[in-house]
């Protein structure tokens, strides 16, 4: 079944790519959008079913495997656990909304939907993959698809931004590949099977070699996450990307980095992670504060949200640093930090995804991302204001919304391990509060400039999509047990909580 979640969108993408451009669906973008949305929803349904069947045993469940390149120990292996299931489900949800979201198709609807569906399959595949080779395949392919999405449907200096994104993240994927190979070479028998590698722990006590492999992985994941100072590809890519692509980029692609940290680095090289966890924590705090401070000064809506992404991914990293630290006696706190980091990935995906979609809608209406060009929009666009407000508050960590559930756990968990880092990082939430309140104030409050007297409110498709995301954000915020239970089934055993 999980396989279908990956391949249904992939196959649909292939079919769409082969359809004629001037007849049938190719000539009816609206109908095409509906079809694409329905296809995109299939993985969501499959993952929902998988969720219902999830038992939380602590290991990988619902594993599906088939030999691929057995000579090299490569197989197609997919499965879920408490870490990958929420991320995959979030991905599927975000894709449904992103695909259904209205956007300027530039006369190439088939290619647009084909690429998005392709990216959906690939992204879900990445989170479900239980084989390093498969993981890397999905990792790399996602970059290519995103490159074309930004380049073809972006605006501004889209091609340059797309190229920068592609070059930069590809530059990150190569150390990753080298590290994977370095790790692979130490397994015995040689295999790319994640579960087997985690069992083998081939690099335990491997000294410098393990450290080199570690930093290979680290750089690869850090660029994608991104961790300051490897973040400079992010703002231009976001600003010039079309709204849905931005949403996917922030919501899904960034998570690949943090997911990789947990799934590979922390699981396969726990010793080295513990060795460097304080350093990672410091980097995380720098990301948090730096991202927030830079965001505070932004006048461009999308850049602002992009930098808050840097900030939020910093929270994730902080939680991971604490979760992987070699501090005995704080297993409960470390498990909570890990749970919090994972939930933050999900929450940030939904919230920032929504914020980027909103940015896209604002651009469609106003033609600019400059915040100061707006003001008093509450007069004209109540739904827009309400949904933006909801997401902004979610992003700044308001209780009752998803971000809080994540952040409180990250801070509480980290405080037990690295009190000073946690204390410093906490300043970040005051800054984010300032960022978003200022943003809300400048966009929606005050008096309406003359030129926006005809500013249209969100229309149905937008409201439906954002509403869906909002509903999940509220659901996670109000009653997170269904999510936390699943994540905890991974986090508890991971840190060795008794």
């Amino acid at each position, binding site marked *: 079944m999980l396989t279908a979640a990956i391949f249904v969108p992939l196959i649909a993408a292939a079919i769409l790519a082969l359809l004629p451009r001037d007849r049938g669906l190719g000539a009816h973008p609206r109908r095409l959008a509906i079809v694409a949305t329905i296809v995109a929803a299939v993985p969501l349904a499959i993952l929902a079913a998988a969720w219902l069947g999830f038992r939380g045993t602590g290991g990988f469940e619902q594993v599906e495997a088939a*030999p*691929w*390149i*057995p*000579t*090299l120990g490569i197989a197609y292996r997919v499965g879920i656990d408490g870490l990958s299931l929420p991320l995959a489900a979030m991905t599927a949800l975000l894709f449904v909304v992103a695909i259904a979201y209205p956007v300027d198709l530039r006369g190439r609807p088939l290619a647009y939907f084909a690429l998005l569906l392709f990216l959906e399959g690939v992204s879900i595949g990445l989170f479900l993959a239980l084989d390093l*080779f498969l993981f*890397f*395949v999905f990792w*790399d*392919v996602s970059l*290519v698809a995103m*490159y*074309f999405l930004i*380049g*073809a449907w972006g605006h501004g200096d*889209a*091609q340059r931004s*797309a*190229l920068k994104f*592609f*070059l930069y993240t*590809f*530059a990150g994927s*190569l*150390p990753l*590949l*080298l590290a994977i*190979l*370095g790790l*692979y*070479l130490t397994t015995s028998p040689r295999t790319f099977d994640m579960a087997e590698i985690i069992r083998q722990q081939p690099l335990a006590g491997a000294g410098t070699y393990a450290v*080199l492999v570690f930093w290979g992985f680290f750089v690869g994941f850090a660029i994608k996450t991104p961790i300051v100072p490897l973040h400079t590809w992010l703002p231009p890519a976001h600003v010039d990307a079309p709204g849905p692509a931005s949403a996917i980029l922030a919501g899904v692609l960034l998570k690949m980095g943090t997911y990789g940290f947990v799934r590979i680095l922390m699981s396969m090289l726990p010793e080295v992670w513990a060795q460097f966890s304080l350093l990672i924590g410091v980097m995380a705090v720098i990301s948090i504060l730096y991202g927030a401070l830079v965001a505070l000064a932004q006048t461009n809506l999308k850049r602002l949200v992009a930098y808050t992404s840097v900030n939020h991914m910093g929270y994730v990293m902080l939680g991971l640093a604490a979760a992987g630290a070699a501090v005995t006696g704080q297993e409960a706190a470390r498990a909570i930090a890990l749970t919090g980091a994972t939930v933050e990935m999900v929450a940030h995906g939904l919230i920032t995804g929504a914020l980027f979609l909103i940015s896209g809608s604002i651009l469609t209406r106003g033609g600019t991302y400059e915040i100061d060009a707006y003001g008093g929009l509450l007069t004209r666009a109540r739904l827009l204001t309400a949904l933006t407000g909801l997401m902004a508050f979610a992003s700044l960590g308001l209780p009752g919304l998803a971000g809080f559930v994540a952040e409180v756990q990250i801070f509480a968990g980290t405080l037990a391990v690295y009190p000073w880092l946690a204390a410093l990082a906490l300043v970040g939430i005051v800054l984010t509060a300032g960022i978003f309140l200022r943003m809300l104030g400048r966009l929606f409050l005050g008096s309406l400039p003359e030129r926006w007297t005809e500013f249209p409110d969100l229309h149905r498709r937008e409201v439906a999509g954002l509403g869906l995301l909002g509903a999940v954000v509220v659901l996670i915020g109000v009653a997170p047990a269904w999510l936390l239970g699943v994540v905890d089934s991974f986090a508890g055993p991971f840190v060795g909580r008794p």
Partner: protein
Amino acid sequence: MNQGESMVASLGDILPEATIVAGGVIVLLFAVLAPRSRQHCAAWIALITTAVAAALTLGMLGDAQTLTFFGTYARDDMAAIGRLVILGATAATIALSMPWFAKDPRHGEYYTLLLYSALGAVLLAGATDLKEFVVAMLLSSGTGFVLAGYHRRSSASAEAAMKYYLLGALANSATLMGVALLFGLAGGTTLSALSTGLASASGPALVTGVALVVIGLTFKLGAVPIHPWVPDVAQGAPAPVAAFLTAVPKVGAFIFLARFVLVLPAATMAWAPLIAVLAATTMTLGNLACLWQDDVRRLLGWSAVSQTGYGLMAIVALGRSDLAVTALLFFLAAYVPANFAAFGTVVALRGRTALGDYEGLGRAQPWLTGSLALSFLSFIGVPPLSGFVAKLLLFLVAIQAGYAWLAVVAAVNTVVSIFYYVRVIAPATFGVPAGPMPTLARGPIWTTILAAGILILTGVAAEPLVQAFTSATVLH
């Protein structure tokens, strides 16, 4: 010992090669005898020849692995696989050439030369003897010079051919001295004689001899320092020939190089650092020179140089990694179709080569654009294309062989390479065409698409190839 009998038996070992020889003669006779309107049939004969030779080769795969012709030639899987790649490339070249050379009155003998050039590469892949190596190289290069200059009214073609020739003649002549020295040291010319004869050798004679032989091979490979012909040929030679010459001789040379380095005395001759340095400089130079090319064919030429550099990583790992041969063969099997998908696009677009002329290709010719993009992505090493598996294996064996720094250099180069590939792909996919973009004929288009399809197929279903390559024996 009954020499006659053994000779007949040996002939069975070179049936595919004999087929090519015979096919070449038949094509030549046909070309001489047939009327002008029938000249294009020569191409079909050549195509059939490659098919028959390939079929015969397939039959030999996994068979008894022996040296034949008194140790001068290998009948092993390595050679057979190389032969299959070469024959596939030759067939693709023929398909690309048919419409391209349709107006050329010397259309017929072109295919003879092509077949013999392929034969040169095939023999190079199978050679286990310095004599055979020299002759095979001569056959391969000699025909190559002519093919490169086959557009006799094109000044670029003539220039490319001349430069190709001059560099080749120099390199070959130098190689002769190297061969002479090695012969003097070992007392024999077969590789097995070298491996025993050189075992105790050392000193300047060995170093000079090996250096000069390597120089000859770098010419065939298009590797530093005898690389400058590659971009010129890629740009100036007839486009199908450019595709052929940047790929086929390389296959033979890589395989011979593999056999050659394996017989060098490990105790006194550390050849791996040399190959590693050559690999690093070749890939780096090729990539850097690509960056600002505004001529797509020339860009492909330089990228062929850089690809050679990646391939050399497998040579470095020979004997140090159990997957080195796999990596080498997979690299070749991935590189050749990608090269043909790229050059095939150029051929199908009637030789369109100025970068600016590719603006908006995606809207005018989506299939060709797709093929071009796939080939470039395969060059970069994006999964799930075969170029990715190749690069993965190359990185793997380099790390395993203790040459992690080389893998890092290759990785950095890969990132650099994205830039120039994207310089072509981006305007092609995002731009709007300025005018119509007519194609040459269906044959090249289908060939291109087929080559691109092979990239996907061998990338996704890599297991059969990996398995075959891993179990391939390498005789010397």
